[in-house]
């Protein structure tokens, strides 16, 4: 009895179900009105959770449209865990196929960026890399080095200026809020440094290097590919910068 009552109740949270109303005592209010309180609490609660992860998406589409999209998302992607931080992982993919948002071509990539931000916020900590360790590796083995990125690091690429869109829609942003989609795409690193999550646009070579290193390519192979695309790439400067700032947190020499 417990199981079928809970299954009926769950179904009634998202759709009108007269069979559930029949199992609710009409008290001071009609049964359907008692049920409606839970329906509101659940839908509002989950919509609020989605809103907390995707504030820029919400700002871009407005409260009404966001609610509409959130309700549609709930139809297909209810939480699979009691930990609300896991909820919303499929929202970017959902938006990409959500016909009413088809005109906002950049929206799914903005959502991807916000999900990466949310993941970075909760990701594991990692101690900074001790650069002196590199000095101990003989020069002839440098090309065999493989690096570990910070656990919060996520590399993104978009054909839209999503970092610009993200920045001008942050709370407290006081500058020019216009954006020209024709300014083109961006490569970006989302990473937590200390307690703060950063969204950093990357130069082409820099993005290529970090992407190759994230795929565990040895330094030699990673650099060859980057130099082919950008002959004047400053390897030492870029590598030192990301070691110092904690993008790269560990390395292994063969």
């Amino acid at each position, binding site marked *: 009895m417990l199981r079928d009552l809970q299954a009926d109740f769950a179904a009634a949270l998202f759709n009108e179900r007269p069979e559930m109303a029949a199992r609710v005592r009409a008290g001071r209010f009609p*049964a359907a009105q008692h049920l409606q309180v839970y329906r509101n609490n659940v839908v509002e609660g989950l919509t609020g959770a989605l809103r907390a992860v995707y504030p820029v998406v919400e700002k871009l589409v407005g409260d009404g449209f966001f609610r509409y999209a959130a309700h549609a998302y709930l139809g297909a992607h209810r939480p699979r865990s009691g930990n609300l931080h896991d909820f919303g992982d499929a929202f970017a993919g959902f938006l990409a196929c959500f016909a009413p948002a088809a005109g906002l071509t950049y929206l799914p990539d903005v959502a991807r960026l916000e999900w990466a931000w949310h993941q970075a916020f909760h990701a594991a900590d990692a101690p900074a890399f001790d650069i002196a360790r590199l000095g101990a590796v003989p020069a002839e083995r440098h090309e065999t080095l493989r690096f570990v990125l910070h*656990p919060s690091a996520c590399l993104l690429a978009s054909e839209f200026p999503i970092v610009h869109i993200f920045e001008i829609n942050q709370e407290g942003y006081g500058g020019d809020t216009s954006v020209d989609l024709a300014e083109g795409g961006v490569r970006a690193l989302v990473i937590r440094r200390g307690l703060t999550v950063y969204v950093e646009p990357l130069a082409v070579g820099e993005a290529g290097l970090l992407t190759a290193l994230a795929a565990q390519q040895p330094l030699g192979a990673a650099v060859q590919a980057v130099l082919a695309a950008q002959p004047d790439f400053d390897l030492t400067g870029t590598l030192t910068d990301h070691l110092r700032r904690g993008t790269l947190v560990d390395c292994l020499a063969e």
Partner: protein
Amino acid sequence: MNPAVAVERPHGPIPPRSGIGLRAEHYRELVERRPPLAFIEVHSENYFGAGGAPLYFLEQARAQYPLSLHGVGLSLGSSDPLNLEHLRKLKTLIQRFEPALVSDHLSWSSVGGEFFNDLLPLLYTEESLAHFSARVTQVQDYLGRELLIENPSSYLQYTESAIPEWEFFGEIARISGCGLLLDVNNIYVSSQNHGFDAYRYLQTLPAAAIREIHLAGYTVNRYPEGEMLIDSHNALVSEPVWDLYAHSVRQIGPRPTLIEWDTDLPPLEVLVGQAELANTILAREAADAA
């Protein structure tokens, strides 16, 4: 990240005075100002992440205050199997932060593998009582410690329920040996929504099992048929709830008391002020009892 941890965290049972729920908006101010509080309480699930600011600030706060871990996601009353991953994360958190109290709710929130992030009402029958008690026992065995169960606010009653909530709630403690977390605001909210006597609720509870009290504010939904109270945790504790609280303290004795405030957060000093009011009542009732 290497948070500064005090050499000696406060350990041992929480004294029967008041504390507040800690939310992210108050992290910095709490650890900098260190208001006099008997304990702090957090939602366990907010600290299930691997690192970053939440765990960093919880370390800082824990160095100064005893801690209560309050869960909203165990889904104890669900007919699904217990979620092992959730339990494992809770156990890891307990091992790291050494809370004085660990609690969750007399409710369910998932079925068929889907979670609804809400405290849904239990069926109050013998079948449900046996099921819920067995689940509490399972969790206590897994965690190797006592769990507190909190009475929820409710907005409906099932036609099939056969046991009053106050009897069901007390029986859970008697059968499983768990502790109880008495939410006075929830009693008041439910009593208004269903038309029972809030004072009657307290009469038969096993007082010795009650380890903690919760206080919070509610909001009012108005319908043509009348008012429905919603346990919204976004307002000051109401006068009738303070009265019921004073009565509870007289009835069961002083207990660690928490001011819960989860949305539309006011400045930290408002929460501390509410906690001071609770302390005043605790002190007054103790003096009257002496």
